[in-house]
């Protein structure tokens, strides 16, 4: 009965009768739910899994993912990780495919606002916790911030074997031969590696990790960062992490290097940036243009086109993936 020790009698939903429970359902908003929706026992469990994940960078830690009031596959792992970390003093930012205003981001933000009473922001530099679907922001994240990435498929090896049981054995033995063969066959068949996002990435020289479907553009940002990256999957019930200042290296060959997405001769139609991840937009009249994917940073660049990605830091020239100094990836060649 240890689970019931944590009950906050004041906030627990009455279970003495169906009528009482129904009455409670008809009450105001989320009254009757615990702070940050999950009960304290569950949040503690998620935090324990997160701590374990930090202790073993890149290793997938199983946890008992709870049913959330969002559909599985829509960020339920991310929101569990976020809600377990957030406190009333925190500021929360949610982005979906680079946008704060996408409908699903708004929905997740609304859940955190309603249940955890956190302040929210769209400004990357002001957030304490950022939950993201498939992007790492263009602005440099700091050691004060945590990035929570939503994860649909937890294992990079799923590409080469559908069985988690078999893949867990491979991870235990650091046996990534099958993935190397897959990449080699890619090169033989297509001349280069044709993996777009979810690029298989080695963490701390030990565990092969699926960095979630972030574009290859964002993968170098994981390497030796100041920030804690937490990867959380709700449907597949796994949490893994890249702690600050961990070596993260995308798999590649000496003569077939890791390549980020190219936007030859393109710049953002809104702010003119040429050092950000762009996405194509097809217009009604058959035109195509490119625009910054990180809408929050794009708005800042529209005011100040020369704004560097580390503008908010005391130091400058910070390495933060493509378009920043000292990054190996911008030359499209070196994967170090």
């Amino acid at each position, binding site marked *: 009965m240890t689970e019931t020790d944590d009950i906050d009698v004041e906030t627990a939903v009455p279970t003495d009768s169906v009528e009482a429970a129904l009455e409670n359902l008809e009450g105001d908003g989320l009254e009757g739910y615990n702070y940050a929706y999950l009960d304290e026992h569950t949040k503690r469990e998620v935090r324990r899994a997160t701590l374990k994940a930090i202790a073993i960078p890149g290793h997938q830690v199983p946890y008992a993912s709870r049913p*959330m009031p969002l559909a599985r596959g829509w960020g339920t792992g991310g929101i569990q990780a976020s809600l377990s970390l957030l406190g009333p003093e925190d500021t929360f930012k949610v982005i979906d495919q680079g946008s704060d205003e996408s409908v699903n981001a708004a929905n997740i933000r609304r859940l955190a606002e309603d249940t955890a009473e956190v302040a929210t922001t769209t400004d990357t530099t002001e957030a304490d916790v950022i939950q993201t679907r498939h992007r790492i922001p263009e602005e440099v994240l700091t050691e004060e911030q945590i990035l929570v990435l939503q994860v649909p498929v937890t294992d990079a090896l799923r590409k080469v074997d559908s069985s988690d049981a078999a893949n867990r054995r491979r991870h235990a033995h650091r046996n990534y031969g099958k993935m190397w063969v897959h990449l080699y066959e890619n090169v033989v068949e297509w001349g280069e590696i044709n993996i777009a996002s979810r690029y298989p990435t080695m963490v701390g020289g030990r565990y092969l990790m699926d960095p979630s479907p972030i574009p290859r553009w964002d993968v170098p940002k994981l390497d030796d960062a100041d920030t804690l990256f937490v990867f959380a999957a709700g449907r597949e019930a796994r949490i893994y992490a890249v702690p600050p200042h961990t070596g993260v290296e995308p798999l590649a060959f000496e003569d077939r290097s890791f390549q980020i*997405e190219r936007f030859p001769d393109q710049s953002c139609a809104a702010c003119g940036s040429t050092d950000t991840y762009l996405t194509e*937009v097809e217009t009604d009249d058959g035109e195509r243009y490119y625009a910054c994917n990180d809408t929050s940073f794009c708005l800042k660049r529209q005011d100040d086109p020369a704004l560097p990605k580390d503008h908010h830091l005391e130091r400058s020239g910070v390495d933060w993936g493509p378009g920043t100094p000292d990054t190996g990836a911008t030359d499209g060649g070196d994967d170090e």
Partner: protein
Amino acid sequence: MGYVAVTAGEEIIERAEDLFEKQRLAGDEDTITVDQLEGQLERLTAQAMSEGGLYAPRLAALAVKQAQGDTVEAAFLLRAYRSTLERWDESVPVEPAEMFATRRVSPAFKDVPGGQILGPTKDYTQRLLDFDLEGEDDPDDPTETWDLEDAEPTTLTNVMDVLREEGLVHDPEVPDVDAPTDTTREPVTPPVDRDAVLQELARGETGAVTALGYSALRGYGQVHPTLAEVRVGKLPLTIEHPYTGDEVTVADVDVSESEAVVPVYAKRDDPQFAFGYGLTFGRNERKVIAMTILDASIQLDSEDEPAENAEFVLDVVDGMDSFGFIEHLKLPHYVTFQSILDRIRAIRERQGAGATGDDDAKRSTADDSTESGENEPTDRETIEASDDD
């Protein structure tokens, strides 16, 4: 630019919710009551309870109403609600033989101890649309005039027990009744114990369980069972009284149960039938029979056929998981799609396919529409160059 920066996201969500609610209220008819759903569409509420893993007929009726009849959505509502509730106690394990059966058929024997009870069923009804149901007005109970004086409930002997006494069916491994696995509180990680398999199957989506069970029967597997019996009825819910420690029955739970023998001999030196078991909340015979096939198949522990591979079955059988991930494809994917476009264009260029094709034409159009051509990045050239390595 609507899709890139959908503004006022929360307002849009609220409007979408309003439109959905309007669908339910648009007609001129009275709204259907939770009582009516609970009383007359019991199969729907039973399915929601079964897949939701929460026995709460009243809440299930409410969920079905809110979900406008979508059972997976209703089960989802129940699960999300249940996950916020504290667990106060665990019930005492119950013997299925204690079931108060309203229906019980044993295909394995012509007659069995306790007899065959056909009970309420449409199994033998001809499937003809009953046009009298349209516009029916206060119909009479067709069983009103039945003489029920002799109809006393009898205790049923479990058919499987009869076979086990003779040593024809091997015994299941004894589960740890003091610490049963609970897959809602512990992650499912292969290899999975049988109690976790049964729990996941019992909560599985009806269509998925049926389809996978059918796959084994259809030939993708070795299990073609003989049903020892299928039962529908009430099981007592018994708990230990917190003060006296006595066992007290506090409620009844409607369940469907199925057991089968499978003509696969488990051991060469002592040939015995394999077996399968199924049980789920509410009345859902097709799901429990399919569950029985899957339990038997999974116990064969082979990776040769989909239904015999525990990992495969448990990965795909849950309605919440499949529903969520299938429908998530509706979310924007333009970041990943851009990444995919980059790869195919690079490979087409490498093969010379894209060099003069549609891509370049469109790209120059796009180029014209951009405003800041002067800011050409120096690193772009090198990416391009390295691409041609």
